[in-house]
């Protein structure tokens, strides 16, 4: 027991992850290549949508309030697609977390991917773990300055490219690149790039594990989705202990080489058991498998384990098969919900017509009496044309009652809507005084619009208010 109280604040312990090779490392290089590739290249993919619309495949057009994703175009009133995708992303994370623990953290989180990239650069320039530890302890001479500055400059280039790629999602990429280079781009583009450059540089280069341990809320939430069947990275303590260099019958398989500790980007020792800091990046598995191969032991002293298997393994039985852990009520529920929402979204996408029609009956006043005693109702009809060319729509009325349809400002029944825009038209429905609809409180009717040049059509139900009977 210590007499002096422990300090309130702790300095950041430097971590020098060693290079490691193996199955999981290779897999992670691939993930890095693919995710970074997607991130940097997506804005440059072109997609022809006709002359009036942008030709960028993926574009968040905030100014015109449109979201383009290849063949899909989403208008603000269809934001539920985005909401649905976000819910699916959330459920997907729940599913993966409950099955495989913090896989998101270990493999796909930008913080992990970019930190990996930054460490790779660090290793190229400053050497592997031992060289870096030496450099850390060395005095600030010319060599140290040279190495550090080179590293920082390369990091900075990556950081600028990261922030730079982000802004291309929001406007035409080639134009913006030209403007950026000519210093003619809007100030907000430069500000965004500057902020993202700073965060990338800081988080990937210096903050690293601190982001995961102290700043990120996700690990706190993840705990709620894991249980004894969740596969996480763990140490087969019953096989490894007592650890020791001697390597004979009195010791377990762990030769205490510290390989697993030296490769850990979080700077922890997995042999102490599951810990809050562990992002399950699986690099210690690769490191340990490598050692086991060298001393002629089976792989998997450190491995993906489920807590539920521990008693069995301690008793000398093999662990249960993986599917047994993955297929359980929780994951099945997550998968079902996930697929359900996915199916609903796809369904909604297919039944979505390219005419969008809203009919708003004017209720102030509910009806107008005309000089010949006719009763007239007014409707505000809003028509959206989601295509790249102007379209003409014929509007018509279906009702059991005798009613007449008229358009404000036109003798015809045709409404022209400019490309990629919305038009509002006042539409009148009139009942002659002698017809029943004029004196009945409420008559149902349906307004149809059809594209004059194609068979696209849409309809809305609404009602007609007559003079309430005195």
């Amino acid at each position, binding site marked *: 027991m210590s007499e002096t109280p422990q300090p309130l604040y702790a300095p950041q312990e430097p971590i020098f992850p060693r290079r490691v090779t193996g199955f999981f490392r290779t897999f992670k290089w691939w993930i890095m290549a693919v995710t970074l590739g997607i991130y940097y290249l997506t804005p440059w993919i072109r997609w022809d949508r006709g002359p009036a619309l942008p030709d960028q495949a993926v574009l968040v057009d905030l100014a015109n309030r449109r979201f383009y994703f290849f063949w899909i175009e989403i208008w603000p009133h269809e934001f539920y697609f985005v909401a649905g995708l976000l819910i699916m992303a959330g459920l997907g994370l729940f599913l993966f977390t409950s099955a495989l623990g913090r896989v998101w953290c270990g493999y796909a989180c930008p913080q992990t991917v970019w930190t990996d990239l930054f460490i790779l650069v660090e290793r190229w320039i400053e050497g592997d773990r031992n060289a870096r530890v030496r450099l850390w302890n060395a005095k600030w001479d010319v060599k140290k300055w040279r190495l550090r500055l080179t590293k920082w400059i390369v990091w900075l280039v990556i950081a600028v490219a990261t922030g730079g790629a982000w802004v291309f999602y929001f406007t035409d990429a080639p134009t913006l690149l030209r403007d950026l280079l000519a210093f003619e781009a809007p100030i907000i583009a430069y500000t965004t790039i500057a902020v993202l450059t700073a965060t990338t540089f800081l988080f990937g280069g210096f903050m690293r594990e601190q982001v995961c341990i102290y700043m990120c809320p996700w690990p706190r939430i993840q705990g709620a989705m894991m249980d004894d069947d969740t596969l996480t990275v763990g140490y087969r303590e019953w096989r490894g202990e007592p650890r020791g260099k001697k390597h004979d019958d009195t010791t377990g398989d762990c030769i205490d080489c510290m390989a697993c500790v030296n490769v850990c980007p979080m700077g922890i020792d997995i042999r102490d058991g599951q810990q809050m800091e562990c992002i399950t990046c699986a690099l210690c598995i690769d490191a340990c498998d490598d050692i086991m191969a060298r001393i002629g032991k089976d792989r998997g002293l450190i491995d993906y384990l489920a807590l539920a298997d521990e008693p069995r393994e301690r008793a000398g039985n093999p662990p249960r098969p993986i599917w047994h852990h993955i297929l359980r009520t929780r994951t099945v529920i997550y998968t079902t919900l996930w697929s359900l929402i996915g199916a609903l979204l796809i369904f909604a996408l297919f039944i979505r017509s390219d005419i969008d029609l809203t009919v708003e009956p004017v209720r102030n006043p509910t009806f*107008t009496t005309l000089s010949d005693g006719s009763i007239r109702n007014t409707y505000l009809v809003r028509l959206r044309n989601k295509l790249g060319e102007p379209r003409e729509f014929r509007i018509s009325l279906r009702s059991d009652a005798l009613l007449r349809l008229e358009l404000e400002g036109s003798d015809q029944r045709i409404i022209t809507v400019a490309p990629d825009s919305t038009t509002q038209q006042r539409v009148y429905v009139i009942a002659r005084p002698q017809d029943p609809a004029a004196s009945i409180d409420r008559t149902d009717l349906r307004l149809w619009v059809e594209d004059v040049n194609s068979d696209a059509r849409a309809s809305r139900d609404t009602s007609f208010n007559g003079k309430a009977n005195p």
Partner: protein
Amino acid sequence: MADKKNDIDETSGIETTGHNWDGIKELNNPLPRWWLWCFYLTIIWGVGYTIAYPAWPMITGATSGVLGYSTRAEVAQDIARFDEQNSALETALADADLTTLAENEELHRYAVAGGAAVFRAQCSQCHGSGAAGATGYPNLLDDDWLWGGDIENIAYTIRHGVRNETDFDARWSEMPAFGDILERDEIDGVVQHVLAISGQDHDAELAATGAEVFYDQCSACHAEDGVGNRDLGAPNLTDAIWLYGSDVAALTETVRNARFGIMPPWGERLGEADTKAVAAYVHQLGGGE
């Protein structure tokens, strides 16, 4: 509770805060030092912020901040920016020929939207927010117009008003109060005649005598057949639309004491562009001719 300083959690080797809930203890993990620096930074930022922006309350207001920022100035700027953006349309509207306004789609849309806003602010008190009017205040949605329903006439009425004494060019006419001129039964007859020509239930005998009185007294303005005269603002008495009601009591009141609806002139208050905008708005409500 255990003595705070000496209680060390066994598993983690970390001191606890001494708080203990049914055996669950709270670890006193140290915060990272960079967190502390961030905290200091926010304090410095906060001080800088109160110097740069309006912050400290004083007796007559708040300190104005060295950047001279003000939300009011920002709003004024925004308004100026919108005015600037719209100035081309605004001038075009002021100079526009109303009869061909609808052909210029952009300008027409601008006029209708602007007119709607002005209408809600200035006209809705009498004519209603939906322009349906009220007793004594004309309904602007229907196809019956006292002074004419083409866009030029609507604009004229808005510009100069009706029966007001402020505008020399106001629409003007005055119906005499026939209570001083006609006998009681003559008035009853005229009322029945009006009921008859507008297709309502009436007393045929009285209506027949009223027809003669109507011919003598009323037809000069309302025309022999009662269809009215827009030059004089004399309403059509044969249709289904009644500004003051169509029952015997309301009609008798009208004939005996006359009516004198007033509308102020808006031309000067609104300016040319807004006057035209309101005209364009009213014209497209369904009754425009």
